[in-house]
């Protein structure tokens, strides 16, 4: 019992630290990547001075995220003359909390066997016994469903924020946000349904483990090769869920000031921004888990590599754990970078275009993808039976 608590406590600390770091770093990555894409230099002024010296640590402007956070915390929490107190206060948290909670079911590493990891010291090893842990916080069978469920709670937060602010811009932003997110939720759900049909499970660890095999003898059995259309639809729908630029109509600086959080200031506004940036990391983690083989390298499983020729390369447990965690982070970082690339490349849709894109283009595509998947799965399983 105690052992479970220790291990899960460590997981939770790791996950929270990971998400917060991603939230902070991504603000910097976004600015820097946008600058480099536009032949500029980008954020480069914030520095930490080592006390009592004149040594300034600039580190390519890495501390701009820190400076932004500090500014948000220290600013005056300005409130409008009339607003709904309760809803106004809890709205940022309703946006922020589900984003963090989603990560509870996403596996960020393979199976952890503490006894084998601490085999050097027999006391610890015997204390842990033969317990094994999948590296994720909540061992839920309904992993993917939980992700979708928490994803749709965010809509409530933005609706509350817009409604409670007593501001027409906020209200418009909230309405846009709600209709947009409901539309794209549908696309996302239908897309993921194809994957569920193929893998036959909604447990994310199972999904990752099924992706460590091979397709046609040489391709890694990643979701992106099984469901290429699904991957594109998923990333489009996820970007829309995240309300970032091709789909940033709920925020729309040029028309709605800041959309549903127009009336928010200081850290309350910071929470909305932070939630948005963490959501990028969450989307990247989900995409990695569902389509890019999760924490595994190609042809890799917990025990070792099974190369296409049938050759098996075993790796030790400690190496596997470290490698899986690092691989997961690298994949998430690359997908985040790709999402930022999309955000800084594409022009914005008009509002009617956003909804038309969802209902007339993505939804039929998702349905067609689902039908094809169903037929293919039925044919293959029928052939097997």
């Amino acid at each position, binding site marked *: 019992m105690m052992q479970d608590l220790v291990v899960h406590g460590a997981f939770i600390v790791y996950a929270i630290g990971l998400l917060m770091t991603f939230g902070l770093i991504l603000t910097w990555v976004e600015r820097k*990547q946008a*600058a*480099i*894409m*536009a*032949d*500029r*230099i980008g954020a*480069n002024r914030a520095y930490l001075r080592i006390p009592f010296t004149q040594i300034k640590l600039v580190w390519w402007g890495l501390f701009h995220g820190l400076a932004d956070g500090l500014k948000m915390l220290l600013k005056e929490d300005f409130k409008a003359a009339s607003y709904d107190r309760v809803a106004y206060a809890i709205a940022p948290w309703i946006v922020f909390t589900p984003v963090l909670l989603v990560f509870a079911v996403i596996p960020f590493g393979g199976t952890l066997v503490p006894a084998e990891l601490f085999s050097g010291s027999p006391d610890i090893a015997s204390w842990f016994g033969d317990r094994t842990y999948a590296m994720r916080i909540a061992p839920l069978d309904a992993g993917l469903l939980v992700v979708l469920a928490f994803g749709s709670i965010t809509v409530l937060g933005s609706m509350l924020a817009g409604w409670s602010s007593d501001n027409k811009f906020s209200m418009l932003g909230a309405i846009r946000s709600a209709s947009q997110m409901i539309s794209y939720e549908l696309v996302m759900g239908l897309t993921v349904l194809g994957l569920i049909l193929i893998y036959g499970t909604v447990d994310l660890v199972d999904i990752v483990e099924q992706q460590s095999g091979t397709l046609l003898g040489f391709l890694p059995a990643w979701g992106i090769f099984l469901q290429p259309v699904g991957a*594109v639809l998923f990333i489009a729908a996820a970007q829309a869920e995240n309300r970032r630029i091709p789909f940033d109509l709920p925020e729309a600086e040029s028309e709605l000031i800041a959309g549903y959080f127009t009336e928010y200031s200081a850290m309350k506004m910071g929470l909305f921004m932070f939630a948005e940036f963490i959501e990028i990391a969450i989307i990247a983690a989900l995409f990695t888990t569902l389509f890019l083989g999760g924490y595994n390298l190609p042809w890799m499983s917990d025990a070792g590599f099974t190369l296409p020729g049938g050759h098996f390369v075993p790796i030790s447990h400690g190496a596997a754990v470290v490698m899986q965690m690092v691989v997961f982070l690298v994949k998430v970082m690359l997908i985040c970078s790709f999402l930022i*690339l*999309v955000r*800084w*490349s*594409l022009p914005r849709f008009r509002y009617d275009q956003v909804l038309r894109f969802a209902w007339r283009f993505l939804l039929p595509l998702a349905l067609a993808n689902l039908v094809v998947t169903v037929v293919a799965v039925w044919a293959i399983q029928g052939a097997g039976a």
Partner: protein
Amino acid sequence: MSRKPFVRRVYWNEPAMNWWERFYLFEILRGLSITGGVFTRNMWRWITGRKGALTAYYPEEIRPDYARHNRGKHILTQRPDGRPQCIACNMCATVCPARCIEIEAGLDPDDTPHPKYAKRFEIDYSRCIFCGFCVEACPEDAIRMVPETPGLPAQDRWHMWIDRDALLNWNPQRDVAKPYPPKPGKGVPT
């Protein structure tokens, strides 16, 4: 009340897209490949120790291609013996629209042709708008502006003042049109 339904006007030069462009996905990929290509190119330059940006890293890096008549940092011209040519007439301070020039005049009875000189001559670069009126107003050609702007920015406004000695010496220039004889006896008045 009945209103006419909104009919969108069709213009003669309406941009036409073929079905390939209308499908959008491949055009997106094309756009992403362009921006991604620029990103990787610039990133590769940064990684290999070159500069991957077109912008200058001001103020650490100053562009070499300032215009010849760019109004940059001020200088005070020197007489042949190193004293400032300024006669503290206050015309530049008067004409300055930003009121950023402060001059304190001093009296030097030994220098009979120009007994009045600038004891203090200070410019506040946090307020200067680089209009060049001071240069135009000066009857003695004592203040000039050069194209370069080294070392102007500072962390706070108190470090953005520049005093007489700095103005005289950061880029010493002489007025060749007026070769004054050196002052008898003393050196630079303080």
